[in-house]
Protein backbone atom coordinates (compact mmCIF):
# COMPACT_ATOMS: atom_id res chain seq x y z
CA UNK A 1 0.00 0.00 0.00
CA UNK A 2 1.68 3.25 -1.01
CA UNK A 3 2.03 5.94 1.58
CA UNK A 4 -0.10 8.99 0.90
CA UNK A 5 1.78 12.26 0.91
CA UNK A 6 0.01 14.45 3.41
CA UNK A 7 2.28 17.45 3.60
CA UNK A 8 0.95 20.34 1.46
CA UNK A 9 4.48 21.78 1.38
CA UNK A 10 5.86 18.52 0.01
CA UNK A 11 3.07 18.38 -2.54
CA UNK A 12 3.97 21.92 -3.58
CA UNK A 13 7.65 21.11 -3.81
CA UNK A 14 7.28 17.79 -5.62
CA UNK A 15 7.24 19.21 -9.18
CA UNK A 16 10.29 21.31 -8.31
CA UNK A 17 12.09 18.31 -6.81
CA UNK A 18 11.27 16.21 -9.86
CA UNK A 19 12.56 18.96 -12.12
CA UNK A 20 15.71 19.17 -10.05
CA UNK A 21 16.14 15.39 -10.27
CA UNK A 22 15.69 15.62 -14.03
CA UNK A 23 18.36 18.30 -14.28
CA UNK A 24 20.73 16.25 -12.14
CA UNK A 25 20.04 13.18 -14.27
CA UNK A 26 20.67 15.17 -17.43
CA UNK A 27 23.91 16.44 -15.96
CA UNK A 28 24.99 12.90 -15.09
CA UNK A 29 24.15 11.75 -18.61
CA UNK A 30 26.14 14.58 -20.12
CA UNK A 31 29.05 13.76 -17.85
CA UNK A 32 28.76 10.05 -18.61
CA UNK A 33 29.05 10.80 -22.32
CA UNK A 34 32.67 11.78 -21.87
CA UNK A 35 33.38 9.36 -19.05
CA UNK A 36 34.25 6.29 -21.07
CA UNK A 37 37.06 4.27 -19.60
CA UNK A 38 40.50 4.54 -21.15
CA UNK A 39 40.12 1.01 -22.56
CA UNK A 40 36.38 1.16 -23.21
CA UNK A 41 36.32 0.23 -26.85
CA UNK A 42 33.02 -1.67 -26.60
CA UNK A 43 29.96 -0.22 -28.30
CA UNK A 44 28.74 0.75 -31.73
CA UNK A 45 30.88 2.77 -34.07
CA UNK A 46 30.76 4.31 -37.50
CA UNK A 47 33.66 5.01 -39.79
CA UNK A 48 35.04 8.51 -39.43
CA UNK A 49 34.77 10.53 -41.52
CA UNK A 50 31.86 8.80 -43.20
CA UNK A 51 30.39 9.50 -46.62
CA UNK A 52 27.17 7.80 -45.53
CA UNK A 53 24.33 9.00 -43.36
CA UNK A 54 25.38 8.77 -39.75
CA UNK A 55 25.24 10.47 -36.42
CA UNK A 56 26.75 13.74 -37.64
CA UNK A 57 29.87 15.63 -36.69
CA UNK A 58 30.85 17.59 -33.62
CA UNK A 59 33.22 20.36 -32.70
CA UNK A 60 35.50 17.92 -30.92
CA UNK A 61 36.15 15.87 -34.05
CA UNK A 62 39.83 15.02 -34.54
CA UNK A 63 41.53 15.58 -37.92
CA UNK A 64 40.60 12.92 -40.45
CA UNK A 65 43.29 10.31 -41.16
CA UNK A 66 45.33 10.50 -44.36
CA UNK A 67 44.11 8.40 -47.31
CA UNK A 68 45.43 4.84 -47.47
CA UNK A 69 48.68 5.02 -49.47
CA UNK A 70 49.44 2.72 -52.38
CA UNK A 71 51.02 -0.55 -51.24
CA UNK A 72 54.85 -0.61 -51.27
CA UNK A 73 54.88 -3.69 -53.48
CA UNK A 74 58.13 -4.97 -54.91
CA UNK A 75 58.61 -3.76 -58.50
CA UNK A 76 57.78 -7.17 -60.00
CA UNK A 77 54.43 -7.11 -58.16
CA UNK A 78 53.70 -3.38 -58.32
CA UNK A 79 53.66 -3.25 -62.13
CA UNK A 80 50.96 -5.91 -62.61
CA UNK A 81 48.97 -4.55 -59.66
CA UNK A 82 49.05 -0.98 -61.01
CA UNK A 83 48.08 -2.16 -64.49
CA UNK A 84 45.13 -4.15 -63.12
CA UNK A 85 44.00 -1.15 -61.05
CA UNK A 86 44.20 1.16 -64.06
CA UNK A 87 42.31 -1.30 -66.26
CA UNK A 88 39.57 -1.69 -63.64
CA UNK A 89 39.28 2.10 -63.35
CA UNK A 90 39.01 2.47 -67.14
CA UNK A 91 36.32 -0.22 -67.36
CA UNK A 92 34.42 1.44 -64.52
CA UNK A 93 34.54 4.80 -66.31
CA UNK A 94 33.13 3.02 -69.36
CA UNK A 95 30.22 1.70 -67.31
CA UNK A 96 31.49 -1.90 -67.20
CA UNK A 97 33.06 -2.27 -63.74
CA UNK A 98 34.75 -5.64 -63.19
CA UNK A 99 32.96 -7.93 -60.79
CA UNK A 100 34.58 -8.07 -57.35
CA UNK A 101 34.13 -10.14 -54.22
CA UNK A 102 31.49 -7.57 -53.27
CA UNK A 103 29.57 -8.34 -56.45
CA UNK A 104 29.46 -11.96 -55.37
CA UNK A 105 28.36 -10.93 -51.86
CA UNK A 106 31.62 -11.97 -50.25
CA UNK A 107 32.87 -9.77 -47.42
CA UNK A 108 36.23 -8.05 -47.41
CA UNK A 109 37.95 -10.03 -44.67
CA UNK A 110 41.09 -8.57 -43.11
CA UNK A 111 42.20 -5.88 -43.23
CA UNK A 112 39.51 -4.37 -45.48
CA UNK A 113 36.67 -5.20 -43.10
CA UNK A 114 38.13 -2.78 -40.55
CA UNK A 115 37.40 0.10 -42.92
CA UNK A 116 33.87 -0.23 -41.49
CA UNK A 117 31.98 0.77 -44.60
CA UNK A 118 28.82 0.25 -42.58
CA UNK A 119 28.51 0.53 -38.76
CA UNK A 120 30.61 -1.70 -36.54
CA UNK A 121 29.99 -3.20 -33.11
CA UNK A 122 32.74 -4.05 -30.63
CA UNK A 123 32.04 -6.44 -27.76
CA UNK A 124 34.71 -6.59 -25.06
CA UNK A 125 34.24 -9.59 -22.80
CA UNK A 126 37.70 -9.49 -21.29
CA UNK A 127 39.51 -12.47 -22.76
CA UNK A 128 37.83 -11.97 -26.11
CA UNK A 129 37.07 -8.92 -28.17
CA UNK A 130 34.51 -9.53 -30.89
CA UNK A 131 34.12 -7.15 -33.81
CA UNK A 132 30.99 -7.35 -35.90
CA UNK A 133 30.73 -5.47 -39.17
CA UNK A 134 27.22 -4.72 -40.37
CA UNK A 135 28.47 -5.16 -43.94
CA UNK A 136 28.03 -8.83 -44.80
CA UNK A 137 27.58 -9.73 -41.10
CA UNK A 138 31.34 -10.16 -40.84
CA UNK A 139 32.69 -11.24 -37.46
CA UNK A 140 36.21 -11.43 -36.10
CA UNK A 141 37.26 -12.71 -32.72
CA UNK A 142 40.38 -11.37 -31.05
CA UNK A 143 41.77 -13.41 -28.16
CA UNK A 144 43.30 -11.18 -25.52
CA UNK A 145 46.40 -12.52 -23.80
CA UNK A 146 47.25 -14.80 -26.70
CA UNK A 147 49.57 -14.49 -29.66
CA UNK A 148 48.18 -15.48 -33.06
CA UNK A 149 49.41 -18.79 -34.44
CA UNK A 150 52.59 -18.54 -36.50
CA UNK A 151 51.72 -18.23 -40.22
CA UNK A 152 52.59 -21.86 -41.00
CA UNK A 153 50.08 -23.02 -38.37
CA UNK A 154 47.43 -20.37 -38.98
CA UNK A 155 44.40 -21.74 -40.82
CA UNK A 156 43.67 -19.35 -43.70
CA UNK A 157 40.45 -17.44 -43.09
CA UNK A 158 38.81 -14.24 -44.25
CA UNK A 159 39.32 -12.55 -40.87
CA UNK A 160 42.50 -14.47 -40.12
CA UNK A 161 43.40 -15.50 -36.58
CA UNK A 162 43.99 -12.72 -34.08
CA UNK A 163 45.64 -12.41 -30.70
CA UNK A 164 46.06 -9.23 -28.68
CA UNK A 165 47.52 -7.61 -25.61
CA UNK A 166 47.04 -4.29 -23.89
CA UNK A 167 50.03 -1.93 -23.92
CA UNK A 168 48.92 0.76 -21.49
CA UNK A 169 45.61 1.80 -23.04
CA UNK A 170 46.37 0.63 -26.55
CA UNK A 171 45.06 -2.71 -27.76
CA UNK A 172 47.79 -4.26 -29.87
CA UNK A 173 46.32 -6.88 -32.19
CA UNK A 174 48.28 -9.25 -34.39
CA UNK A 175 46.70 -11.30 -37.12
CA UNK A 176 47.97 -14.14 -39.28
CA UNK A 177 46.29 -16.63 -41.61
CA UNK A 178 44.62 -14.59 -44.36
CA UNK A 179 43.21 -16.52 -47.32
CA UNK A 180 45.25 -16.00 -50.46
CA UNK A 181 42.37 -14.51 -52.46
CA UNK A 182 41.39 -12.09 -49.69
CA UNK A 183 43.26 -9.02 -50.81
CA UNK A 184 42.48 -5.52 -49.63
CA UNK A 185 42.52 -3.30 -52.73
CA UNK A 186 43.47 -6.42 -54.70
CA UNK A 187 46.97 -6.35 -53.22
CA UNK A 188 48.52 -9.83 -53.44
CA UNK A 189 50.12 -11.39 -50.38
CA UNK A 190 51.93 -14.51 -49.25
CA UNK A 191 50.92 -16.99 -46.51
CA UNK A 192 53.39 -15.13 -44.28
CA UNK A 193 51.39 -11.89 -44.22
CA UNK A 194 51.00 -10.31 -40.78
CA UNK A 195 48.66 -7.50 -39.86
CA UNK A 196 49.33 -5.45 -36.74
CA UNK A 197 46.78 -3.04 -35.33
CA UNK A 198 47.16 -0.48 -32.58
CA UNK A 199 43.69 0.47 -31.38
CA UNK A 200 43.18 3.35 -28.97
CA UNK A 201 40.63 5.98 -27.96
CA UNK A 202 41.02 9.70 -28.51
CA UNK A 203 39.13 13.00 -28.41
CA UNK A 204 37.38 12.45 -25.05
CA UNK A 205 37.24 8.76 -25.99
CA UNK A 206 34.42 9.54 -28.40
CA UNK A 207 36.65 8.46 -31.27
CA UNK A 208 38.80 5.41 -31.86
CA UNK A 209 41.80 5.06 -34.12
CA UNK A 210 43.23 1.94 -35.63
CA UNK A 211 46.81 2.17 -36.87
CA UNK A 212 47.33 -0.75 -39.22
CA UNK A 213 50.62 -2.18 -40.43
CA UNK A 214 50.81 -4.95 -43.00
CA UNK A 215 54.11 -6.78 -43.29
CA UNK A 216 54.89 -9.33 -45.97
CA UNK A 217 58.58 -9.45 -46.96
CA UNK A 218 57.79 -11.66 -49.95
CA UNK A 219 55.62 -8.98 -51.57
CA UNK A 220 56.30 -5.66 -49.83
CA UNK A 221 59.53 -3.64 -49.78
CA UNK A 222 58.58 -2.22 -46.37
CA UNK A 223 55.60 -2.30 -43.97
CA UNK A 224 52.40 -0.82 -45.42
CA UNK A 225 50.81 1.45 -42.84
CA UNK A 226 47.73 3.60 -42.57
CA UNK A 227 45.11 4.68 -40.03
CA UNK A 228 41.36 4.22 -39.93
CA UNK A 229 39.19 6.07 -37.46
CA UNK A 230 35.76 5.55 -35.98
CA UNK A 231 33.24 7.64 -34.11
CA UNK A 232 31.00 6.33 -31.35
CA UNK A 233 27.35 5.88 -32.27
CA UNK A 234 25.63 5.22 -28.93
CA UNK A 235 22.22 3.64 -29.22
CA UNK A 236 22.66 2.48 -32.80
CA UNK A 237 21.21 -1.00 -33.26
CA UNK A 238 23.15 -3.12 -35.71
CA UNK A 239 21.21 -4.52 -38.65
CA UNK A 240 21.56 -7.85 -40.36
CA UNK A 241 23.12 -8.21 -43.80
CA UNK A 242 22.46 -11.51 -45.49
CA UNK A 243 22.66 -11.63 -49.25
CA UNK A 244 19.23 -13.08 -49.79
CA UNK A 245 18.84 -12.52 -53.51
CA UNK A 246 21.83 -11.22 -55.42
CA UNK A 247 20.84 -10.04 -58.87
CA UNK A 248 24.41 -9.09 -59.77
CA UNK A 249 26.90 -11.53 -61.24
CA UNK A 250 29.92 -11.59 -63.54
CA UNK A 251 29.46 -12.02 -67.29
CA UNK A 252 31.87 -13.99 -69.49
CA UNK A 253 34.18 -10.98 -69.68
CA UNK A 254 34.17 -10.56 -65.90
CA UNK A 255 32.02 -7.43 -65.89
CA UNK A 256 29.30 -6.97 -63.28
CA UNK A 257 25.89 -7.54 -64.84
CA UNK A 258 22.37 -7.18 -63.50
CA UNK A 259 19.66 -9.79 -63.97
CA UNK A 260 16.41 -7.87 -64.23
CA UNK A 261 13.98 -10.79 -64.44
CA UNK A 262 12.83 -11.25 -60.86
CA UNK A 263 11.13 -14.54 -61.65
CA UNK A 264 14.43 -16.25 -62.46
CA UNK A 265 17.11 -14.46 -60.45
Amino acid at each position, binding site marked *: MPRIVKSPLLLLLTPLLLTECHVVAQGAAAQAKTAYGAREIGGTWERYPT*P*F*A*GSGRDANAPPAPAPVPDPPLKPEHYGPWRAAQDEAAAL*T*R*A*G*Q*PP*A*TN*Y*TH*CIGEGMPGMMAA*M*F*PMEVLDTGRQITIIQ*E*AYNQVRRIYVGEAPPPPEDSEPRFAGNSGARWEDDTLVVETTGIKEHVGYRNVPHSPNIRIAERISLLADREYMQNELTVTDPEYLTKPWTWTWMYKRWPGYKM*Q*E*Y*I*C*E*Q*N*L*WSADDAGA*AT*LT*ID*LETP
Partner: protein
Amino acid sequence: MTKTALRFALLVVSLLFATAASAHHSFAPYEAQKQIKLVGTVEKFLWQNPHVYIQLRGAEEGQEERLWLIECANPGILNRIGWKFNMVKQGDEIAIAVAPMRNGQAAALLKAIKLPDGRIFGNGGPAGPATISLE
Protein backbone atom coordinates in the same frame (compact mmCIF):
# COMPACT_ATOMS: atom_id res chain seq x y z
CA MET B 1 29.81 32.11 -49.75
CA THR B 2 27.09 32.97 -52.24
CA LYS B 3 24.15 30.63 -52.74
CA THR B 4 25.45 29.67 -56.19
CA ALA B 5 28.91 28.88 -54.84
CA LEU B 6 27.37 26.86 -52.03
CA ARG B 7 25.21 24.91 -54.50
CA PHE B 8 28.27 24.23 -56.63
CA ALA B 9 30.27 23.03 -53.60
CA LEU B 10 27.41 20.73 -52.61
CA LEU B 11 27.18 19.40 -56.16
CA VAL B 12 30.91 18.62 -56.21
CA VAL B 13 30.63 16.77 -52.90
CA SER B 14 27.58 14.91 -54.15
CA LEU B 15 29.37 13.83 -57.30
CA LEU B 16 32.30 12.54 -55.26
CA PHE B 17 29.88 10.47 -53.23
CA ALA B 18 28.04 9.35 -56.33
CA THR B 19 31.21 7.95 -57.83
CA ALA B 20 32.16 6.12 -54.65
CA ALA B 21 31.50 2.40 -54.80
CA SER B 22 28.52 1.16 -52.89
CA ALA B 23 29.06 -1.61 -50.36
CA HIS B 24 27.95 -4.19 -52.89
CA HIS B 25 28.95 -3.02 -56.34
CA SER B 26 29.94 -0.01 -58.37
CA PHE B 27 27.11 2.19 -59.63
CA ALA B 28 29.08 2.82 -62.83
CA PRO B 29 26.64 0.78 -65.00
CA TYR B 30 24.08 3.56 -64.42
CA GLU B 31 24.10 6.93 -66.16
CA ALA B 32 26.21 9.32 -64.09
CA GLN B 33 24.59 12.55 -65.31
CA LYS B 34 21.21 11.62 -66.76
CA GLN B 35 18.15 11.28 -64.56
CA ILE B 36 14.56 10.62 -65.61
CA LYS B 37 11.22 10.68 -63.83
CA LEU B 38 9.13 7.53 -63.93
CA VAL B 39 5.51 7.26 -62.82
CA GLY B 40 3.78 3.95 -62.36
CA THR B 41 2.48 1.14 -60.18
CA VAL B 42 4.54 -1.01 -57.84
CA GLU B 43 4.35 -4.66 -58.85
CA LYS B 44 6.88 -5.94 -56.31
CA PHE B 45 8.82 -4.51 -53.40
CA LEU B 46 11.72 -6.63 -52.18
CA TRP B 47 13.19 -5.55 -48.84
CA GLN B 48 16.41 -7.55 -48.84
CA ASN B 49 20.19 -7.52 -49.05
CA PRO B 50 22.35 -6.81 -50.89
CA HIS B 51 19.81 -4.40 -52.44
CA VAL B 52 16.22 -3.43 -52.04
CA TYR B 53 14.32 -3.56 -55.34
CA ILE B 54 11.13 -2.06 -56.68
CA GLN B 55 9.57 -3.63 -59.73
CA LEU B 56 7.60 -0.83 -61.34
CA ARG B 57 5.21 -0.94 -64.27
CA GLY B 58 5.51 2.61 -65.47
CA ALA B 59 6.86 5.09 -67.95
CA GLU B 60 8.63 8.34 -68.50
CA GLU B 61 6.22 11.02 -69.69
CA GLY B 62 5.41 10.47 -73.36
CA GLN B 63 7.17 7.10 -73.47
CA GLU B 64 5.87 3.56 -73.70
CA GLU B 65 5.15 1.69 -70.47
CA ARG B 66 7.77 -0.89 -69.43
CA LEU B 67 8.40 -3.19 -66.51
CA TRP B 68 11.29 -1.51 -64.70
CA LEU B 69 13.61 -2.95 -62.07
CA ILE B 70 14.60 -0.14 -59.74
CA GLU B 71 17.67 -0.67 -57.58
CA CYS B 72 17.69 0.91 -54.15
CA ALA B 73 20.39 0.87 -51.45
CA ASN B 74 20.27 -1.90 -48.85
CA PRO B 75 17.93 -2.10 -45.84
CA GLY B 76 20.67 -0.83 -43.50
CA ILE B 77 21.29 2.39 -45.42
CA LEU B 78 17.58 2.95 -46.04
CA ASN B 79 16.62 2.40 -42.39
CA ARG B 80 19.26 4.94 -41.40
CA ILE B 81 17.66 7.61 -43.60
CA GLY B 82 14.11 6.99 -42.41
CA TRP B 83 12.69 4.31 -44.71
CA LYS B 84 10.65 1.43 -43.28
CA PHE B 85 10.41 -2.11 -44.55
CA ASN B 86 6.67 -1.71 -45.20
CA MET B 87 6.80 1.80 -46.64
CA VAL B 88 6.18 0.72 -50.23
CA LYS B 89 3.42 -1.73 -51.11
CA GLN B 90 2.28 -3.63 -54.15
CA GLY B 91 -0.23 -1.50 -56.04
CA ASP B 92 1.16 1.84 -54.81
CA GLU B 93 1.19 4.61 -57.39
CA ILE B 94 4.59 6.26 -57.09
CA ALA B 95 6.84 8.74 -58.85
CA ILE B 96 10.59 8.22 -58.86
CA ALA B 97 13.72 9.98 -60.02
CA VAL B 98 16.20 7.45 -61.37
CA ALA B 99 19.45 7.09 -63.28
CA PRO B 100 18.81 4.55 -66.06
CA MET B 101 21.23 1.80 -67.04
CA ARG B 102 23.72 2.88 -69.68
CA ASN B 103 23.14 -0.32 -71.67
CA GLY B 104 19.42 0.28 -72.25
CA GLN B 105 18.10 -2.41 -69.90
CA ALA B 106 14.79 -1.53 -68.24
CA ALA B 107 16.59 -1.02 -64.96
CA ALA B 108 17.62 2.07 -63.05
CA LEU B 109 19.21 3.32 -59.86
CA LEU B 110 16.82 5.12 -57.54
CA LYS B 111 17.64 8.70 -56.59
CA ALA B 112 14.36 9.69 -54.92
CA ILE B 113 10.87 8.30 -54.44
CA LYS B 114 7.55 10.07 -53.91
CA LEU B 115 5.06 7.90 -52.06
CA PRO B 116 1.26 8.00 -52.51
CA ASP B 117 1.01 10.13 -49.34
CA GLY B 118 3.36 12.72 -50.81
CA ARG B 119 6.41 11.95 -48.71
CA ILE B 120 9.73 12.00 -50.59
CA PHE B 121 12.76 9.90 -49.65
CA GLY B 122 16.25 9.71 -51.10
CA ASN B 123 18.31 6.57 -51.62
CA GLY B 124 21.25 7.28 -49.30
CA GLY B 125 24.68 8.84 -49.78
CA PRO B 126 26.31 6.27 -52.09
CA ALA B 127 23.48 6.47 -54.65
CA GLY B 128 23.68 10.26 -54.78
CA PRO B 129 20.91 12.85 -54.76
CA ALA B 130 18.07 13.49 -57.20
CA THR B 131 18.76 16.35 -59.58
CA ILE B 132 15.19 16.44 -60.93
CA SER B 133 12.04 17.38 -59.06
CA LEU B 134 9.28 14.99 -58.04
CA GLU B 135 7.00 17.79 -56.80
